C-alpha cells in the first residue's frame, strides 16, 4: 500500500535527522543548526497534515494504518516478539499535527529567543529540540506499548538535556536532575506495567495488526478475558481475578503517566523545570513531554475503560491536581511559575475527563491546551526578552502599550486558559466538566460519586484558573510600569511575533472544531471532533467502542442533561475569577499602596485599608489554602522523596562498613555466612 503512510516514519525521522545535522554540523551553519530544525519540523508538519487529511478521507477514502515495520527482538519459542510499528488512526493523526505544529513554531521562536540573544552552545540546543520532537512524534505513532515506552523514556532524557541547557548555572542542572529522577520514578512503575502487560497478554499492541495473520491487541484480549474466561483468551493473570489484575496493570502504567504529565504527587519537577529556556518550556508543556502522559492514557483507553477502579483513580487524581495546582498558581510571583502551575492544573482536567469517560473531551482539551499554552509560553518568552530575562511580575506592568502584538496574543491565550467564551479553552474545559458531570450523574454506585467529587474540584478550579490567569495578565501588561526596564522594554522581532500571531489566532478559533453547546442549541452538527473520533478504520480505537466498553465493563454511563446549563455555570465562575483579578490588580499600581504604607497620608491609608480588605476578602481563603498546599508540596511530598533517597544513602553507608578492609574479617564473615546457609538450607531444610 503506497501512499502517505509510507512516509509516516519520516515524520519522526526528519527531526531526528535535524538532530544529527545540528549536533555535528551546527557549528558551521549561520543559525547554528536552527535551519535544520525548522526545515525538518516544517516537513514533519506538512506530512502530518497530509496524513490527517488522508485519515479524514479528504484526499480519498478514509483509512487508518497499523503495521509492524521492524522486528526488533524475535523471541525464541514461547518468548515475546518485540516490534517497531506504526499506528495511524484519528487520534494519532491529530496528535501528530499538534506536535509538529508546536515544534515548528518553537523552532522559529527560538531564533528570536536564543539566536538573537547571543546564547552559546546553540547546536546542542537545536540538536536537543530535534531529538525531543523526533522522540515525541515517534511516541505518538507507536503501535505497541514497549516502543511507546522507549520513546517515552527518550522524551524524558531529552527534557533532562534541555532543562539543564544552561548547565553552568546552579539551578538548571538540579532542576534537570529533579525532572529526570521524578519522572523516572514514575517510569519504573510504567516499566513493571509494560513487563506485566507482556507477561499477561504476550503482546503490547494497542490495536490489532491486520495481515496474513491478524495479531490481536492487548485491550481486545483483556476484553475477551473479562467477557469469557482468561484461559480461552490466552491470557495469564497470575492467579488473580482478571478484573483485579487488569486494574493493577493499568495503575502501574498510570505511574509513568502521573510522572510525565506532572500529576499529583509527582508534579514537583514541573515548576522547577522552568529553569530551562522558555521555548523548551513551551515545547514541554504544550506538546511533548507532559502531553505524552495523557496521550498514553488516551492511546490505551480501551484498556482503562475496562476497569472502573482505574478510571476513578484517574478522575480523582485529575480533579484533585486541577484544583490543587490552580490554588498554588495564585501566590506565585514569577510569570513562568504561574504558567507552570496552570499546566499542571490543565492536565489535571484532561485526566479528569479521561477518568470520567470523556475521551473526546480530553483529546479536545489536549488540542486546545497545546495551542494556548504554547502561545502563553511564547508570549512569556517575548516578555522575558523584553524585560532582559527578568521574570518577576512585580517588576513589570504597563507593557500593554509597549508591546501590543505580544499583549493581544497573550490576552487571547489568557482568555482561552481562563475559559471565557468564545475562546478555545472555554469549549474544551466546558466539555471536560460537562462529561464529568453527566457521567457522574449517570453512573451507578461509588464511581458515580467519585466522578462527581472530581467534577466539583474541577469546577472550583475554574474560578482560581481565571483568577490567577488575569492576575498575571494585569500585573504584567496593565497599570503603570514599575521598573525602568518595563518602561523601556527591548523590542522583539518577526521571529517572535510570527509564531505568536499564528497561535493567537489559533487560541481564539481552535475551539470551534467542537462547539457542543452551540450544536445542541442550534441543532446543527458542528461537533466535528466528536465525529472525527467516533469513527475510523480501526474500530477498537473509536469512541463508539469505548462507549460500549465503559457501559459494559466499567458501569459508566452518561445522564441525560443538556450542555448549556453546566456551561453557563463554569462561565460564570470564570468571569467571577476574572472580575476578582480585575478588582485587585487592574489598577494603575497594584503594589504601590502597600509600599507607601510607612509615611502615607490618611487618604492613602484609607485606600490601603480598602485594598487590604479586598485582598483579605478575596484571598482570605485562597492564600492560606494555597500556602498550605505549597507547604504540603514542599514539606511532605518532597520530604518523602528526599527521605527515601537519604534512607538509601544511609543504608549504603552502612553496607559499605561491612567492607572493613581487614581480610581476616572477610574470612570471618564468609565463614559465618557459610554456616548460616548450611544451618538454614541443610539443617532447617530438613535434609539431615
Amino acid at each position, binding site marked *: 500500500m503506497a501512499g502517505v503512510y509510507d512516509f509516516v516514519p519520516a515524520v519522526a525521522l526528519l527531526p531526528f535527522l535535524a538532530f544529527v545535522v545540528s549536533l555535528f554540523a551546527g557549528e558551521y551553519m549561520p543559525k547554528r543548526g536552527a535551519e535544520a530544525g525548522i526545515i525538518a519540523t516544517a516537513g514533519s508538519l506538512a506530512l502530518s497534515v497530509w496524513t490527517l487529511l488522508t485519515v479524514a478521507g479528504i484526499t480519498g477514502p478514509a483509512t487508518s494504518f497499523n503495521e509492524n515495520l521492524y522486528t526488533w527482538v524475535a523471541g525464541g519459542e514461547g518468548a515475546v516478539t518485540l516490534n517497531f510499528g506504526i499506528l495511524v488512526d484519528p487520534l494519532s493523526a491529530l496528535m501528530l499535527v499538534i506536535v509538529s505544529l508546536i515544534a515548528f513554531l518553537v523552532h522559529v521562536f527560538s531564533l528570536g529567543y536564543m539566536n538573537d540573544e547571543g546564547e552559546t552552545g546553540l547546536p546542542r540546543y537545536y540538536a536537543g529540540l530535534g531529538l525531543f520532537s523526533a522522540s515525541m512524534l515517534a511516541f505518538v505513532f507507536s503501535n505497541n506499548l514497549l516502543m511507546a515506552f522507549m520513546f517515552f523514556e527518550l522524551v524524558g532524557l531529552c527534557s533532562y538535556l534541555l532543562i539543564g541547557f544552561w548547565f553552568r548555572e546552579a539551578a538548571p542542572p538540579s532542576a534537570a536532575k529533579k525532572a529526570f529522577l521524578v519522572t523516572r520514578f514514575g517510569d519504573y512503575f510504567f516499566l513493571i506495567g509494560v513487563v506485566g502487560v507482556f507477561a499477561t497478554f504476550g503482546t503490547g499492541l494497542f490495536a490489532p495488526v491486520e495481515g496474513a495473520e491478524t495479531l490481536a491487541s492487548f485491550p481486545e484480549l483483556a476484553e475477551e478475558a473479562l467477557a469469557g474466561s482468561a484461559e480461552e483468551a490466552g491470557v495469564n493473570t497470575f492467579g488473580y481475578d482478571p478484573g483485579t489484575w487488569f486494574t493493577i496493570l493499568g495503575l502501574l502504567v498510570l505511574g509513568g503517566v502521573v510522572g510525565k504529565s506532572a500529576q499529583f504527587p509527582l508534579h514537583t519537577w514541573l515548576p522547577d523545570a522552568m529553569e530551562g529556556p522558555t521555548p523548551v518550556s513551551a515545547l514541554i508543556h504544550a506538546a511533548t513531554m507532559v502531553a505524552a502522559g495523557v496521550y498514553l492514557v488516551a492511546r490505551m483507553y480501551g484498556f482503562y475503560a475496562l476497569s472502573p477502579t482505574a478510571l476513578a483513580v484517574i478522575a480523582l487524581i485529575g480533579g484533585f491536581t486541577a484544583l490543587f495546582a490552580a490554588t498554588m498558581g495564585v501566590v506565585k510571583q514569577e510569570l513562568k511559575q504561574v504558567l507552570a502551575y496552570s499546566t499542571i492544573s490543565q492536565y489535571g482536567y484532561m485526566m479528569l475527563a479521561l477518568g470520567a469517560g470523556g475521551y473526546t473531551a480530553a483529546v479536545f482539551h489536549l488540542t486546545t491546551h497545546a495551542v494556548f499554552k504554547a502561545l502563553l509560553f511564547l508570549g512569556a518568552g517575548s516578555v522575558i526578552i523584553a524585560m532582559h530575562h527578568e521574570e518577576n511580575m512585580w517588576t513589570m506592568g504597563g507593557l500593554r502599550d509597549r508591546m501590543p502584538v505580544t499583549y493581544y496574543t497573550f490576552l487571547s491565550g489568557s482568555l482561552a486558559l481562563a475559559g471565557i467564551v468564545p475562546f478555545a479553552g472555554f469549549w474544551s474545559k466546558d466539555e471536560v466538566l460537562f462529561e464529568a458531570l453527566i457521567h457522574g450523574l449517570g453512573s451507578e454506585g461509588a464511581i458515580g460519586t467519585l466522578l462527581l467529587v472530581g467534577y466539583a474540584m474541577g469546577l472550583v478550579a475554574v474560578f482560581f484558573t481565571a483568577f490567577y490567569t488575569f492576575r498575571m495578565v494585569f500585573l504584567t501588561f496593565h497599570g503603570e510600569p514599575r521598573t525602568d526596564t518595563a518602561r523601556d522594554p527591548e523590542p522583539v522581532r518577526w521571529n517572535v511575533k510570527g509564531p505568536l500571531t499564528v497561535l493567537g489566532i489559533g487560541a481564539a478559533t481552535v475551539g470551534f472544531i467542537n462547539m457542543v453547546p452551540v450544536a445542541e442549541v442550534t441543532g446543527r452538527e458542528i461537533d466535528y471532533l466528536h465525529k472525527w473520533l467516533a469513527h475510523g478504520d480501526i474500530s477498537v480505537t473509536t469512541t463508539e467502542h469505548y462507549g460500549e466498553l465503559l457501559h459494559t465493563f466499567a458501569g459508566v454511563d452518561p445522564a441525560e442533561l443538556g450542555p448549556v446549563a453546566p456551561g453557563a455555570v463554569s462561565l460564570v465562575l470564570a468571569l467571577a475569577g476574572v472580575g476578582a483579578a480585575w478588582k485587585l490588580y487592574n489598577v494603575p499600581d497594584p503594589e504601590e499602596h502597600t509600599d507607601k504604607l510607612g509615611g502615607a497620608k490618611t487618604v492613602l491609608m484609607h485606600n490601603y485599608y480598602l485594598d487590604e480588605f479586598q485582598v483579605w476578602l478575596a484571598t482570605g481563603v485562597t492564600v492560606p489554602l494555597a500556602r498550605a498546599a505549597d507547604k504540603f508540596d514542599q514539606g511532605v511530598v518532597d520530604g518523602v522523596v528526599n527521605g527515601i533517597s537519604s534512607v538509601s544513602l544511609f543504608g549504603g553507608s552502612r553496607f*559499605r*562498613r561491612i*567492607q572493613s*578492609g*581487614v*581480610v*581476616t574479617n572477610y*574470612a570471618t564473615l564468609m*565463614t559465618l555466612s557459610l554456616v548460616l546457609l548450611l544451618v538454614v538450607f541443610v539443617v532447617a531444610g530438613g535434609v539431615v
Partner: protein
Amino acid sequence: MAILSEFYLLLSAAVFSIGLYGILTRSNALVFLMSVELMLNAANINLVAFSFHYGNVTGQVFSLFTMALAAAEVAIGIGIVLVLYRNFEDIDVTKAATMRW
C-alpha cells in the same frame, strides 16, 4: 575390617575445621597459607576415602589434581606474600588494610 566411611568424613571435617580455625585466628600470611593447605587436604581425605568406598579411581585422580593445584596456589601465594613484605614491611595480613568501605 574396613573402617566405615563416615569416620573419614568426620576426620576430614575435623581437618577442615582446624584449617578454618587457623584462617580465622592467625594474621600471619604464611600461617594463612598453611591453613588453606589443611583445608584442601581435608578434601583430599574425602576424595581418596570415597574413591575406595565406591571402588572407582576418579576421586584419587582428582586428588592428584587438587594437590598439584594446591602447590601452584602456594607458589603464587608466596610470591604475593613476598611483594607484600616489600611494600608493607610485614607479612601480617591485617596490616594491609588501606582500601576499605
